[in-house]
């Protein structure tokens, strides 16, 4: 039984190389249309900046982070390319999941650990990643993937940092995954 379902389930996912080519074309389209690559963490940064501004209208003058953000973004922080793009990501992911029958509210975790443990690590991981994405001026989508697409040295360095560290620490967290 597990053999059949394994092949069935793997048929439901795109072949990775095809997925990669399609992803590359999407990235190419972004570069051609908007002159910039994809991204993700930047959208969250926009929401954070907006919320800070709502609570404290003077934040741009009191918080250096807000000042630095305002320098590179004019107008309302929510009017940012990435915000619109990430809204699209939600929709696109949903549609794809719906078509493939993968819509399901659940906590995905290795059977060897509890849901709670998984969620705790998800939270810690997200916090670290959010913080790191600010230092790295982008996440895997914005800095690593899009950076590589335009041959950016900074993007490449960040990518090596991400993947290298993940490999290096993999042994210590193996119990969570395998």
């Amino acid at each position, binding site marked *: 039984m597990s053999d059949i379902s*394994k092949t069935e*389930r793997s048929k439901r996912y*795109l072949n990775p*190389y095809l*997925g*990669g080519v399609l*992803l*590359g074309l999407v990235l190419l389209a*972004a*570069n*051609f*249309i*908007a*002159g910039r*690559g994809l991204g993700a963490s930047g959208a*969250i940064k926009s929401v*954070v*900046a907006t919320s800070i501004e709502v609570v404290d209208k003077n934040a741009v003058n009191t918080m250096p982070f807000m000042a*630095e953000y305002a320098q590179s973004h004019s107008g309302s922080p929510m009017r940012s390319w*990435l915000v619109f793009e*990430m809204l*699209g*990501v*939600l929709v*696109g*992911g949903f549609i794809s*999941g719906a078509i493939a029958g*993968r*819509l399901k*509210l*659940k906590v*995905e975790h290795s059977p060897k650990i509890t849901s709670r443990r*998984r*969620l705790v690590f*998800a*939270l*810690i*991981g*997200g916090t*670290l*990643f*959010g*913080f*790191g*994405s*600010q*230092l790295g001026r982008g996440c*895997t989508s914005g800095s690593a993937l899009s950076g*590589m697409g*335009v*041959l*950016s*040295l900074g993007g490449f*360095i960040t990518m090596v*940092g*991400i993947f290298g*560290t993940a*490999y290096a*620490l993999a042994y210590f967290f*193996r119990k969570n995954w395998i």
Partner: protein
Amino acid sequence: MGPLAPNGIISENTNFLLAFFIGIAFGWVLESSGFSSSRKLAGQFYGYDTVVLKVFFTGAITCMIGLLLMSLFGWIDLDLVYVNPTYLTSAIVGGVVMGAGFIMGGFCPGTSFTGAAIGKIDAMVFVGGLFIGIYGFAFTYPWWEKMYMAKYLGEPKISQSLGMSDGIFGLLLILVALGMFVVAEWAERKFPREEY
């Protein structure tokens, strides 16, 4: 002649609308490739699922080839395309912190949105963590500002720093990636796991 928005060929609003559609395509491809599953993503680091390597590098190479070819035909002005700046210190430190976040959380921001979109609660919690992390950075920014701005090298391209043309570097990258794919497929055969 591209890119369209920087050249004023499309308005800012059109650009945002198209961003939405590009996002849809992005999310769709990510989900269809299995990036909505944290176990598939983490599998990259244990050898049993190398979808991350394949999709990532194929994607980067496809885009790179596309941009260089388009530039050759004069369809795009590469000088107007954003090249990520290189701030050496924060690029490395940020990468390391993100790497830790990746192996612990099993997601990155883009994939976490995709996972959240199909109902993965661990993905949603990851997104929550992202907010916490960014708020944390915002409020402690003065502590990091110096590191954040250190060692600005401009916007060099990898090909530039290696002293070769874009095209030659591109070929090199293609060959290296194909080599990695061969190793990846061998690894997958050696460490098989159930498909998620």
